Each structure stands twice: as structure tokens, then as C-alpha cells.
């Protein structure tokens, strides 16, 4: 099993307050890893370390080692722009730009300096198909992305990330703002694309984690309590707190 991202002894401070207390978590290639745990346990904070989005928050200090394909993510030589092309991110709230669907999906390609119109069109189409939203938008590619439903917007956002052809996609509760039907569509599409991408998904929804993920990591109070194959972790958790959480004793 090849790991795309490996992390070791990750600590993160918001000012003086330590929010992550030494985390070791690896993301195996072309697998879906679910990050579960109660609110405030540090899942988003950890996820945002992986594409260095925390760099944007003032007062954050990060220690520990992060490697993407063996290369240090936080080395001064790392080009953050290149890193973020390899490590895509989907947010909790669907956040398409107030442009047309086409321009949204083509955004990353234009950033990459691709000028070839045919190539852009092809990529946009492929990405929208991969994101299972092509049929719904193919006649409305020039419509403002904001004119679509929340679920469609989120799939457009996923297509926007896929178009850049990242290695790993970070998703922070991508379905928690959506209705169950839209959420189901996104779960299905993740299962469809998992043989091409490595996916890390934060979710509050235990069923979702068990349905789609290969591995699960349980976070609690800024610590990684337990990690393992999803089946094993759900059927026979090793730690008492994991079992309590899975059984809904707190949350």
C-alpha cells in the first residue's frame, strides 16, 4: 500500500493554544479515508494543514512532518501554488464563483496557463461527467453557477477541483449542507472516482463514513484516538471512546 500523504507528530497552535496534539495519519493511494469525531475535535484543522490553508489564518504555528509523495509539504522550497494543485479541496458550503458553470470548472485550468480551447472544453466536460452533474448542466454551461441547487453547486465545485487533476482531494463535510438525496449522489460519485483519486473526507455522518470509506480515523479533542480499516473500526473498535462515539454516547 502506497501512501500519498504521510504525517508524523503533527502539532498545531492557534496562538498559544495547542489544537492538535501530535497526530500521525497516512492517506493510502486511491483509497477513501474518513475523518470522524465530534465538533471541535480538530478534523478541519488537520485537513487544512494538508494543503496549507492554515497559512492564511494569522497566529497559527505548525510542527511535525508532512510529506506528499515523500516531499516535505512545509519545506521553504515547496511551492504552495503547486501543492494546492496537487491537493484539491472541497468545502462544507458549496462555494462556486458567481460566474458561469463553464468558467467555474475552467478556472483552475486557466490558472495553470492552459490556453487550448479544445483541451479546456474536453476537461470541463470530463470533470462535470466525473462529478455526475453533466446531464443536469450540459445545456446550461453559460448559466451562472449560483442559479443551480445546492447539491448541483457542490458537484460543480467537485468538478472544478477534478479539472485540475489533483492527486488527493480533501473534503470537509461536503454533504452536511445538503439534503439526503443530493448527499447520496455525492457519495455515489466519490465511489466512482476513487480509483483515480485519493480522498480524505471529514464527515459527521457515521453511515456515510461506513458506506464509502476504506479507512476511518477517529479524532477526539485534538488527538487521533484510533485509525484503521473502516470495517474493523466500526465492528470492533479498540478504544473505549471510539466505541462510545460510534454508539452515540456523545457527539
Amino acid at each position: 500500500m502506497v501512501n500519498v500523504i504521510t504525517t508524523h507528530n503533527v502539532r498545531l497552535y492557534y496562538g498559544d493554544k495547542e489544537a492538535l496534539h501530535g497526530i500521525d495519519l497516512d492517506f493510502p493511494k486511491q483509497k477513501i479515508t474518513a475523518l470522524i469525531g465530534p465538533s471541535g475535535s480538530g478534523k478541519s484543522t488537520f485537513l487544512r494543514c494538508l494543503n496549507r490553508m492554515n497559512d492564511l489564518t494569522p497566529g497559527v504555528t505548525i510542527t511535525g512532518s508532512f510529506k506528499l509523495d515523500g516531499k516535505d509539504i512545509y519545506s521553504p522550497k515547496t511551492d504552495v501554488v503547486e501543492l494546492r494543485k496537487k491537493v484539491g479541496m472541497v468545502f462544507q458550503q458549496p462555494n462556486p464563483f458567481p460566474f458561469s458553470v463553464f468558467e467555474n470548472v475552467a478556472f483552475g485550468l486557466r490558472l495553470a496557463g492552459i490556453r487550448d480551447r479544445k483541451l479546456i472544453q474536453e476537461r470541463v466536460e470530463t470533470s462535470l461527467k466525473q462529478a455526475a452533474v453533466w446531464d443536469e448542466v450540459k445545456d446550461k454551461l453559460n448559466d451562472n453557477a449560483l442559479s443551480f441547487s445546492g447539491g448541483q453547486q457542490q458537484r460543480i465545485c467537485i468538478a472544478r477541483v477534478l479539472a485540475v487533476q489533483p492527486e488527493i482531494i480533501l473534503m470537509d463535510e461536503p454533504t452536511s449542507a445538503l439534503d439526503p438525496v443530493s448527499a447520496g449522489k455525492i457519495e455515489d460519485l466519490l465511489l466512482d472516482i476513487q480509483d483515480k483519486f485519493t480522498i480524505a473526507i471529514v464527515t459527521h455522518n457515521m453511515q456515510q463514513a461506513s458506506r464509502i470509506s476504506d479507512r476511518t480515523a477517529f479524532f477526539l479533542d485534538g488527538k487521533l484516538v484510533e485509525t484503521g480499516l473502516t470495517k474493523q473500526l466500526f465492528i470492533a473498535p479498540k478504544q473505549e471512546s471510539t466505541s462510545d462515539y460510534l454508539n452515540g454516547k456523545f457527539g
Partner: protein
Amino acid sequence: MEDIKRQLTHSSKATKQDRYGKAIAFFCTFLIGLLVVSILYLVASRGLATFFKDHVSVWDFLTKQNWNPSQVDKNGSPLVGALPMIVGSFSVTIFSAVLATPFAIAMALFMTEIEPRRGTKFLQPVIELLVGIPSVVYGFVGLTIVVPVVRTVFGGTGFGILSGTLVLFVMVLPTITSMYVDSLRAVPRFYREASLALGATRWQTIYKVVLRASIPGLLTAIIFGMARAFGEALAVQMVIGNASLLPHNLISPASTLTSVLTTGMGNTVMGTLPNNALWSLALILLLMSLCFNLIVRYIGKKGRMAK
């Protein structure tokens, strides 16, 4: 039982207060509405009298170049060609907006994107100060500094469209900047995050996402600036030269609708043609500000952003 019934069928104190509040609000709205309607009526009735009572043709009024309402030409029709003022008004308005816009964009970006903390700390008070300065002061400064400088650099008297433009530039700059700052701040944070997460640099994020998402806001800000420029009277009047001639260049004395109004107001008698002609100019001003308003509304409707 009886008690409960009474409670349910009688309006509570809160409901009554609610009703009073509504009544007062309605009354105030009605008063304001009445005021607006009477102003419109006054300006329109006087302004239209030139055409209906004094039988000046609207076309002549808008296209003739001779403005001397107390005189008549050889055919006996009064000399009320407003074209020079209309051209003057539009020139200073458009030139000052065009000149101010790049500066406003740069200042607004500096305050919101590039140096939010220091930028706001220093520029915010400057902008507020500029907004608060009375226009007569602008006119005075224009008269003592801008006019002589224009005279030395470009020749002529120094009075004219260029001086008017420069003075208005300083006056509309804070308007456009502060409105555009608001609309930049209204660009949701998550647009920026999405863009950065896709591998955009900060600068790419600014011009490909933030600037683009805020174009409607920028247009609105420019229109507001233009409305201010179009309606400004005193400062312009002091530097433009007040000659009702069709301007052929930027440095010869010219006039605007407002400057003719302020200079002419005290010298005419109510109900006479010269007075009515001034009202017609006021009517044009009113219609223009209505236009500006409609454009702003239209842009606002088209360019909505996600919340």
C-alpha cells in the same frame, strides 16, 4: 376557561404596540412620499412650462447653442439652447469619473486586500475627511491652485472643463472609493478560499475572482460618483468659467447645468421665460439623477452574489 378565551380573542399588548409602530412608520413613509411627489410636480410643471407655455421646442432646447433667455433671435423665439451646458455637465462628469476610477480601485484594493489593517487605518480617515469637506472649499482650492496651474501648463485662462474635471475628481474619488471598499468587503471570504485552494496566487485571486465578482459593485460606485459630479454646483461653478459656449477644448471657459442654475437663480422673475428655462435645466438634472438611480437598481439586480 373564560380567562383563556379572553386572552386568545383580545389582542395582547405586544400586538397593539406592533400596530402603533406600523401606523407611525406608514405615516412617515407617506409624508416622505408626498414630499417627493410635490418636488417632482413643482420641477416638472415649471420645467415643462418653457415648452408648453412659452412654446419653445424641446428639440431646439436640447440642441441649440445659444443661451440668453432674456433675448430673442431674429425670428422672435427666445435664445434658450441648452446644449453647451448639457455637453459641459456630461464632460466634467464622465472625465472625472474616468479619471477617478483607477485611483479608487487601487485605493480600495489597498484597503481591503493588500494592507487591510494599515490601509484602513490611514486611508479611512482621509476618505471621511474628503467626503466631509464642504464643496465651497473645494471650489476655493480649485480657484487658487488648480486654475493657475492649468493656466501655466496648458495656457488659456485656466478656467474650463479641465479645471472642473480636476476638482470633481477629488470630490468623487472618496465616494467611489468608499462604496467600492464596501462591495469588496462584501465579496465572501469563501470565494477567496476556493480560489487559493485551486492553486491561485493571491494576485490571481484578486483579479480573477475578487475584482470580477465585485464588478457590479464597482459600476454602482462609479454611477454614484457620477451622480455626485453631475449634481455638484458650487465647486464647479467657481472653476469652470461660466461661459455658455459650446466647449471646443478642455481649457476654454464653459458651463454646466448646475453652474448656470446657481448663477442665474437670483436674477430672474418667477413665471417669466428666463425663470422657466432654468426650471427646465433643473428638470434635466432631475431626470438624469433618475436615470442614474435606475441604472444602479438594474446593476444591483443583475449582479447579486451568494451570501
